[in-house]
């Protein structure tokens, strides 16, 4: 049972990484002078991992998933840094959004367990912070704040769309 669940999560991680590398890496679009959209779907894995998983393990998972993406983006450190950050703040966000009566012991923060409304606010906070961190690290200077914010906001909208589609289609239940 346990092994099956682990295998399932590894499978999702691979699917997300492959989709990111083969499809969304090639997608860059904008309007006219406006080149701000880059869709990132792989943070969905960190979103849906079980609640009871320790924070340290989560960060290590994030680090290695990020490393795989960095290898294919030729951008050492950027993706892994953002994912480690996202894994680190997940506990804080979960505490912030804790429903009355707390979480069930063996549940995951998914639509199946906690409903669409809860998942929307949860994923919105997480993905927005991830994108903000990602684009800040990519630019690596605070001289270009406008650029960071524009990219964050516009990429966030499209990433959310695709992550929600992913979560509705696969609807993780563990």
């Amino acid at each position: 049972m346990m092994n099956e669940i682990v295998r399932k999560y590894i499978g999702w991680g691979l699917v997300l990484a492959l989709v990111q590398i083969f499809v969304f890496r090639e997608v860059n679009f904008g309007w006219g002078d406006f080149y701000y959209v880059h869709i990132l779907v792989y943070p969905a894995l960190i979103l849906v991992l079980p609640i009871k998983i320790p924070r340290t393990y989560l960060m290590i998972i994030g680090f290695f998933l990020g490393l795989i993406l960095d290898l294919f983006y030729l951008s050492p450190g950027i993706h892994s840094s953002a994912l480690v950050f996202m894994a680190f703040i997940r506990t804080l966000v979960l505490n912030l959004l804790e429903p009355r009566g707390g979480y069930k012991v063996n549940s995951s923060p998914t639509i199946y367990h906690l409903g669409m409304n809860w998942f929307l606010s949860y994923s919105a906070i997480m993905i927005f912070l991830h994108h903000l961190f990602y684009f800040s690290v990519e630019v690596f200077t605070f001289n270009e704040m406008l650029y960071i914010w524009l990219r964050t906001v516009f990429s966030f909208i499209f990433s959310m769309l695709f992550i929600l589609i992913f979560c509705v289609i696969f609807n993780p239940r563990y």
Partner: protein
Amino acid sequence: MVDLIRFFLRNGALFLFILLQSICFWMLITFNQSHRAIFLHNKVLVTAGLQERIDNLFDYWDLYHISDSLAAENALLLEKIFESQQKEPADTLATIHGGKGAYSIVPAKVIYNRIGGRNNNMLINRGTNDGVDRGMGVIDGSTGLVGITRYCSANFCRLISLLHSQTMISARIQNRDYFGSVVWHSVNPTRMNLEAVPVHARFERGDTLVTSGYSTLFPPGVEIGIIEDFDVPPGSNFYNIQIRLINDISKAKYVYVINDLLAEEKKLHLMHLDDE
């Protein structure tokens, strides 16, 4: 001692976070500082083979386009040959350097390219085995620049794209002889900026920008782009010039690496210029 261990255990997540982030930033910084390339050197090798396979998959759709551009390229080269035959032999560099050309050109294929980020990288399928090495310019056919080689392994080479925050290319306004540096400030992959042209310079919209040849990266006279708009920021002594690139970097597929055969000798002089 026990307290110390307990402190570490209690704040384990925080310490791990700091540790992992330091690793990430270390990678980031080594990647930005060009001299410590060993780590990346290995990484280029790891994924380059796979990357090439991915690229072959996408190649199929581009074929139409490429055959057209290759034909145009060949035509242009033929033109050049004819042109050079008409010139006096003493004019050409080939004779000055004892029959050896000043540049050797290595054709290469782009196997990874991205234009969406602030610092974009590319990968080409030529490496040190083909005579490509660090710090060589890469052009897109006869007009338009593509990037500069950074880390080379035996069979592959990573470029910094022209669309990179560290790009700085010495350029000259054709027929007017003012020069400046081309940099990328914007998020638009078709526009770049020309900096350090003094306010007394006279030029017009639509003037062509070419490489100056003041570095060992690019030979003089390769077209870069067209001046689209310019203004003088208040209180500045230099123009702020926006240029439209002549080539579409996102479509760069078959590129040419320029190996300046006299680079070592030139660098020797360029290096000592700053000391005096």
